[in-house]
């Protein structure tokens, strides 16, 4: 996809209507040729970021592979809401095995395709953050290390939403979950060392690692297409807000994803062979408070006298991201 400098006429959303773009730059979703890989009728919540991200990612992967795709899914929301049999929302070849083994199952599918001389068939593994950064971590690292020909996509909604919003290793510090309640002197999730999967993936020197959000679906599609130009292990980490788990309005999913990126709290970048090759710079920087306030999981940071000390620590995390990746806005 070629880069086109576009002037924005809408304020706040950064959204660009496809009509402003050349045909070549329009989204896969804008095309009637799209697969609808994850079709209508599934049981995701209103405003589900994961459903949005998965539809765009898989349709882009289907276009990139000309329909030669198999998807392997970990247990989780995406699996449960998409296959209430006898109905299935998947219009692609799709396999669900277990919670923690999707990367290894994907490896097996890819190996079988090679053995059968069907090298044209590509494999996508997908999981939520629990299936990626926690229970599937060993299998994912093994797949990376062997450089198996799999694109693994993590739809990160920062917690175990399918089981009722429990804490995962991707849950941000201070966030309230059902297992990190907003009580006591250190309310919500702990300030740990974090478990930055994109950087861990980069440390494996795999061909391609990228992050994206559902606020910039052009960018998400482009990264899927870019990933499909490589063979070997590839990793895409997509921030997908969860209205239920985050305590946010269904209509705010895209806005929250944008604020996560624009605050620097979620850095959007891509890397090839372990080296950062591109970042999506912040357009108009906001403080983390603007991102945190609309989410009830952070409400305890702002109730009563609030916890400006904790907000400051979260701001420091965002600042560190901005520094690390050079995300600061260009001078106008």
């Amino acid at each position: 996809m070629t880069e086109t400098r576009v002037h924005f006429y809408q304020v706040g959303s950064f959204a660009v209507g496809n009509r402003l773009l050349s045909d070549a730059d329009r989204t896969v979703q804008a095309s009637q040729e799209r697969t609808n890989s994850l079709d209508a009728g599934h049981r995701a919540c209103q405003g589900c970021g994961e459903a949005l991200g998965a539809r765009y990612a898989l349709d882009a992967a289907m276009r990139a592979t000309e329909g030669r795709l198999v998807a392997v899914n970990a247990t989780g929301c995406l699996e449960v809401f998409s296959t209430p049999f006898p109905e299935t929302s998947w219009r692609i070849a799709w396999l669900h095995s277990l919670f923690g083994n999707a990367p290894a199952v994907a490896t097996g599918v890819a190996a079988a395709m090679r053995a059968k001389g069907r090298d044209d068939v590509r494999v996508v593994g997908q999981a939520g953050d629990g299936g990626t950064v926690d229970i599937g971590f060993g299998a994912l690292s093994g797949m990376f290390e062997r450089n198996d020909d799999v694109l693994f996509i993590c739809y990160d909604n920062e917690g175990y939403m399918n089981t009722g919003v429990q804490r995962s290793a991707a849950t941000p510090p201070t966030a309230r979950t059902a297992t990190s309640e907003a009580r006591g002197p250190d309310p919500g999730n702990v300030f740990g060392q974090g478990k930055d999967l994109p950087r861990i993936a980069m440390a494996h020197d795999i061909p391609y690692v990228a992050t994206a959000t559902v606020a910039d679906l052009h960018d998400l599609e482009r990264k899927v297409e870019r990933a499909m130009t490589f063979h070997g292990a590839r990793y895409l980490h997509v921030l997908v807000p969860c209205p239920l788990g985050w305590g946010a309005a269904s209509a705010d999913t895209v806005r929250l994803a944008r604020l996560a990126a624009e605050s620097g709290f979620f850095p959007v970048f891509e890397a090839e062979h372990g080296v950062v090759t591109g970042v999506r710079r912040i357009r108009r920087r906001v403080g983390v408070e603007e991102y945190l306030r609309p989410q009830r999981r952070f409400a305890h940071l702002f109730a009563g006298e609030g916890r400006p000390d904790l907000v400051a620590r979260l701001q420091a995390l965002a600042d560190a991201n901005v520094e690390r990746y050079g995300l600061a806005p260009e001078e106008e």
Partner: protein
Amino acid sequence: MLQQLEGSRAVAETVARCRPEVVCAYPISPQTHIIEAIGAMVKDGRLAPCEFINVESEYAAMSVSIGASAAGARTYTATASQGLLFMIEAVYNAAGLGLPVVMTLANRAIGAPINIWNDHSDAMAVRDAGWIQLFAETNQEAADLHVQAFRLAEALSVPVMVCMDGFILTHAVEAVDLIDQAVVDSFLPPYEPRQVLDPDDPVSIGAMVGPEAFEEVRYLAHLRQLDALELIPSVAEEFAALTGRASGGLVHPYRLEDAETVIVAMGSVLGTIKDAVDARREAGERVGVLGVAAFRPFPVAAVSDALSGARRVIVVEKAFSLGMGGVLATDVATASPASGPDLATVVAGLGGRPITRRDVEGILERSARGTLPRLSFLNLDEDVVARERARMAASRRSGPFAENVLRDVAAGGAHR
């Protein structure tokens, strides 16, 4: 042509002749020689287009197998002991999805205490997983069973586990007649899956099934096991017609004609038991052996028939259910004929403790005298046990009991 071959090598050569398309494994003793040999053959290009995947855990080994099998590849792996337990979630999953993976289980004890030697605790731990479990008596049978295993698995869409005693078979060199490639090719047609991941015909596999259908789905899996009870003997007969070898089948009766006392067992110990029975037959005793070759599905009718004339049945097994007793024995009790023979369980060979011909003759003697208890542990050193029990009674902080027992045994309390 008979060759002197290590059991692992015989299995590897036979699996290779089954033309697997994906092999993956994680090393664990005593399975290693099998996967090393297959890995070398793949490296040489001998098995092309076979893919060999070195995975990071047994959990991944079975998961890669699931993906490969679901994509239509003939898939093989091997494990043992802790490895089987580590992959157990995926072991159930492969069976639940109806994927015909074939796996060698080099039977080994389960810790703690850690122990690398042979018993059947690992196989018993996945008894209910939905796999066909076949037990090999010799290296020849272990090798032959793998050809039959692929045939059974693919015909029924059920995974098959070939159980062979760790070290006793895997590392023993015996005369083995490796099956000819042409025979395998005529016996084992290319794998035609019932369900497959194919972009040209996309299906969803692995959906959630709720209470409205779960029982039916599970019952269908049970029916496939019952189908296996029919197919296992017919496949073994067909194999025998091609090779002249009586490998596989449901049960292996030995000198059961007019036998009043029958020992039931599985695996390599059957050889020792047959030697003991031969000796007792020389002495005029009416004793026989029933080898259980297929543990899952359990051949209730075949066992019942075989035991119909017996007055005493002794199950010698290399595993037990703590707090209960024999595992195989429970199934044998279920299958026992209405005539109701006396049933005794002898737990033996745990963690690699040898079972000798003399031991088996001793069991038969005690049985004949009527002094064999319903449940006993062969060559159990009761002094050592009593000493540790006394220590535990005397002091709350009596320390780690396995280490205490080892110290006592080293000090001369060993059973022999």
